[in-house]
């Protein structure tokens, strides 16, 4: 044993985490690294700035004789309604291979051959992707929206209600991140993941008005409306707490199903 190795043995402290958190810190570091030390973060930011702020800036600039309050409401509603749909689609498309791809490439088996729990593997992706999308698709575009609105609109946007709306959008992001990862744990291929994820969004877009209210309330389809209603301070016809609570429970359920399934995975 060399002197350097002896020094290493002193300085290298064995990792001490237990239970489901084994390997979590390291996996989180890797997942965050994939978001923030590669070009992923600025590509995502650019996409959402173009989609969300591009559309709303055009609306702000084209007042078409609308009253000031009406114009503010129009811009805010568009921001959240377009956001709820577009971000969901973006998440499903971006994350459809997050689990399946690793399984196909063999990197999941490699990581699972180390002292890392399977729960850590899924949870690290959930946290990192939620944080990444929340920052690039909600926080940054919202900040840009507020700056643009302050410069263009004749009436200020109320920051408090707008922040509440952002939190609702955060739940929307969390739902689609969890759904996509859970589907990745359940299916072997990308097809069913993209199909179910995007299908859910499109069904909501086209058939929301035709389906019974309890069904609609049990989906994330109304989260855009809920967010917009908070931002413009106009309560909708339905109890807006219902979709928020139901979707939060669905997030929990999907997360647990995904983790349960991944824990049964054979590599």
């Amino acid at each position, binding site marked *: 044993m060399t002197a*350097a*190795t002896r*020094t*290493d043995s002193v*300085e*290298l*402290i*064995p*990792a*001490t985490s237990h239970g489901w958190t*084994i*390997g979590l*810190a*390291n996996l989180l*570091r*890797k997942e965050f690294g*994939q978001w923030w030390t*590669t070009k992923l973060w600025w590509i995502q930011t650019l996409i959402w700035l173009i989609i969300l702020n591009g559309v709303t800036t055009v609306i702000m600039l084209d007042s078409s004789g609308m009253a000031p309050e009406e114009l503010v409401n129009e811009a805010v509603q568009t921001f959240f309604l377009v956001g709820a749909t577009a971000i969901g689609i973006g998440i499903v498309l971006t994350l459809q291979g997050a689990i399946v791809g690793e399984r196909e*490439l*063999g*990197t999941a*088996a*490699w990581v*699972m*051959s*180390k*002292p*890392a*729990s399977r729960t850590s593997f899924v949870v690290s992706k959930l946290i990192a992707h939620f944080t990444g999308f929340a920052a690039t698709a909600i926080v940054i575009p919202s900040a840009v929206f507020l700056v643009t609105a302050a410069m263009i609109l004749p009436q200020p946007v109320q920051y408090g209600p707008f922040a509440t709306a952002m939190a609702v959008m955060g739940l929307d992001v969390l739902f689609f991140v969890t759904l996509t990862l859970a589907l990745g744990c359940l299916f072997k291929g990308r097809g069913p993941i993209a199909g179910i994820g995007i299908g859910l969004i499109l069904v909501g877009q086209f058939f929301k008005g035709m389906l019974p209210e309890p069904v609609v309330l049990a989906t994330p389809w109304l989260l855009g409306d809920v967010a917009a209603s908070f931002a413009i301070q106009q309560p909708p016809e339905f109890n807006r707490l219902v979709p928020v609570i139901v979707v939060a429970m669905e997030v929990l359920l999907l997360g647990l199903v995904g983790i349960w399934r991944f824990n049964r995975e*054979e*590599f």
Partner: protein
Amino acid sequence: MESGATESAIIDIEAVAGTTSSPGYRAQDVISATGLTKKFGPIEALSGLDLSVPHNSIVGFLGPNGAGKTTALKLLIGLSRPTSGHATVFGLDAVRESNAIRARVGYLAQDPRFYTHLTARETLEFTARFFFLGSKAAIRRRIDETLELVGLADKADRPTKGFSGGERQRLGIAQAQVNHPDLLVLDEPAAALDPLGRRDVLTVMERLREHTTIFYSTHILDDVQRVSDHVVILNRGRKVADAPTSQLLDGGCTYDLTVRGDAGSAKARLRGQPWVSEVSSTVNDGGEHITVTVTDQEAGDALLLRTILQDDSVAVTKFGRKHHNLEEVFLQLVEGQQA
């Protein structure tokens, strides 16, 4: 050539098949498995494997493609769950305590894959962080030492995306031993390597023997013969041999002789001995090659050469107990089972 004198290795299959014990083989086992079975639907990939791997040994795990070697290795480190049976590593249950097992194991997959955007150094740092919390400098030192060991120091900062199969294999070996594991489980460690790479891997394995137990699967029989203390052979999911390498290669009661001159009367004399069960021979340029199988090894050692040398017309140029090579043993065991 005499009738029935085909030169074939006569291996005492009974002596090695199913053998699980040798002196000191159980008490200090790192790996212990009993009746380990894995089914994929109707297919039984592994059938009732009993296995013991002692401390600080190098155990070669042999078998044809599809024999169940990779399945067995994955069961031991918790990548897969057994359909029935039980395995422990360091006395820890391979299903319930697999995280604790993996904290002390280095594993190399058959076709190792890594995150392609990471460099070799980053890959090893990521791996090391599963095991250690220590300072960055200490981890960097360990990684440099490991990269040097596998000959990747000059490629340390290249993304693994552009790595050849051999370079990926070297990185695989590096990541498997970056934590200085108590047990190395290697699935075909030399498969993608050129002869120099293979030699290096074997050298590394021999060097690690002092601190580490190595359990590895391979198709390269020469490598097993060179470095392994113990050999386990698997065929169609079943263990067909489990013995120390020396025992497996030992010809036992078979002797090889090469003689010059007329050996006809010597062979007739041998056949007349009660302790000789079989005599066969072939003739070539170097003389007559005789294979003698005896029923009593002590008698063979003491009397065989004397019996032949009673005949003045015969000169013995080579004499000794037969030693098989692993390929002979492997083929006979596997083909024997298939027959």
